[in-house]
């Protein structure tokens, strides 16, 4: 018992908070997947004027749980000619990068522990923007490994399509990030969020400052997460199920989990860069703390905790806005043809991204020199 309370005390200290957050963020993500699954299935049913899941549990709420249980007890098929090691490694590689990249996302403001301000973030890296991009681009390996290891024609075609689609849109993302870095002047995601706070030097959301970059990154995030209308790697009518045709049971479940965690990551990334991250609209952290101190008459530490909870709720609401758009777009737009997809990436988004970067460069040059060239 004493060791437990000692452990609890350590986790609630500046040194241990990161490890507490590892567990909280990880478990939060894994339990967020059934939530968005239910939202997606109800949303789909609503848009298609059908009932949706309503048999398992109250309002069909137990549907994701029963689906997961079914997957656990399914037979896992490994084709005889598959590459055994790569075949089992690929689903793991689909899940690990999106969870890992969440380490750099600032999920809330600052706690006051032992008299110091501790950022509520697993790892407050000063190159968080690059870290997220670098880790998410590892997702390509899982797709390629799955497609190649399965020794199935549909899998290989799906994997090739998926990987070339992902790397094509990564260029658009890379160029667009340049204009964001020009605007914010930093790669630190927490700094970027602070710059978008009320009363700071850039008192505006990134979506207002860089609307074109917002649009490009938003579109690209659909391609990166292989969601409709860009889900060509899984185009059922052509490729059965794309790169995970041969997967069954929990291995398929891991690909599924990876896709939804990637969606959460893309939403959190977009919210951080463009929707002011954890900031509550129209107030900043100091104002929130002051409010709680005055309204509830608590100490500064408790006020900071309450402010952090408010900011976390604000962040989750923003993330779920983007998650809902993922669902919404899925039933609004039909699937693209492959050449249209590549044309959109290379001939629309990339030139637009370069144009945006050049304009941002000239404008910020003009502003940096105090209004003269």
């Amino acid at each position, binding site marked *: 018992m004493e060791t437990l309370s000692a452990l609890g005390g350590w986790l609630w200290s500046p040194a241990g908070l990161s490890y507490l957050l590892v567990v909280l963020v990880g478990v939060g993500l894994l339990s967020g997947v059934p939530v968005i699954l239910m939202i997606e299935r109800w949303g789909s049913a609503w848009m298609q004027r059908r009932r949706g899941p309503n048999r398992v549990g109250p309002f069909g709420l137990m549907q994701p749980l029963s689906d997961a249980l079914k997957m*656990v007890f399914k037979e896992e098929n490994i084709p005889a000619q598959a590459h055994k090691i790569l075949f089992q490694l690929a689903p793991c590689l689909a*899940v*690990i990068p999106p969870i890992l990249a969440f380490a750099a996302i600032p999920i809330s403001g600052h706690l006051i522990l032992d008299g110091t301000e*501790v950022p509520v973030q697993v790892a407050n890296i000063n190159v968080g923007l690059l870290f997220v991009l670098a880790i998410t681009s590892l997702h390509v390996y899982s797709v390629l490994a799955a497609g190649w290891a399965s*020794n199935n024609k549909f899998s290989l075609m799906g994997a090739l399509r998926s990987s070339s689609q992902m790397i094509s849109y990564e260029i658009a993302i890379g160029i667009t990030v340049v204009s964001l870095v020009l605007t914010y002047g930093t790669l630190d995601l927490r700094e970027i969020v602070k710059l978008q706070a009320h009363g700071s030097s850039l008192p505006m959301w990134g979506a207002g400052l860089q609307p074109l970059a917002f649009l490009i990154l938003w579109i690209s995030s659909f391609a990166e997460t292989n969601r409709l209308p860009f889900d060509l790697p899984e185009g059922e009518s052509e490729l059965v199920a794309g790169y995970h045709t041969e997967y069954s049971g929990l291995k398929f479940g891991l690909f599924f989990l990876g896709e939804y965690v990637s969606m959460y990551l893309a939403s959190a990334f977009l919210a951080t860069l463009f929707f002011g991250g954890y900031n509550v609209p129209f107030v900043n952290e100091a104002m929130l703390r002051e409010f709680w101190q005055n309204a509830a008459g608590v100490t500064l530490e408790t006020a900071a905790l309450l402010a952090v909870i408010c900011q976390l709720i604000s962040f989750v609401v923003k993330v779920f806005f983007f998650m809902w758009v993922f669902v919404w777009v899925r039933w609004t737009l039909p699937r693209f043809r492959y050449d249209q997809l590549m044309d959109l990436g290379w001939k629309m988004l990339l030139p637009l991204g370069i144009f945006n970067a050049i304009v941002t460069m000239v404008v*910020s040059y003009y502003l940096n020199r105090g209004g003269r060239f």
Partner: protein
Amino acid sequence: MQVESTSGVELLIPILAMLGFASVVATGATLVGRFLGPRNLVGVKVQPYECGIKPTGQARERVSVKYYLVAILFLLFDLEAAFLLPVALSWKELSQLGPIILGVMGFFLFFFLLGLWYEFKVKALEWER
């Protein structure tokens, strides 16, 4: 007192902890599925799926050179984007150098756009043919 964001080793440990968490989830799911489900892999079950007909030939065949071309172009353009990032990061200091820096960046971006134009001209990304 403000805790500054650092890039030191102490930041690596929470990231490794996150990696550990993710790896435990992934390997745990793989192992659980392996031991809980039935295992009777015989006959046509272990054949590659080809819509019910007998699989013909190998799957790992030669594929269109287009995919290779996309990968090469990705390397080129991503390198150029990666070069632009440090410039963007120090743009505040660089713009104090005056119009010459605009000229330098214009020179670089001219060749960037020249490459893009050439890529369109030789129809490197036309998928219809």
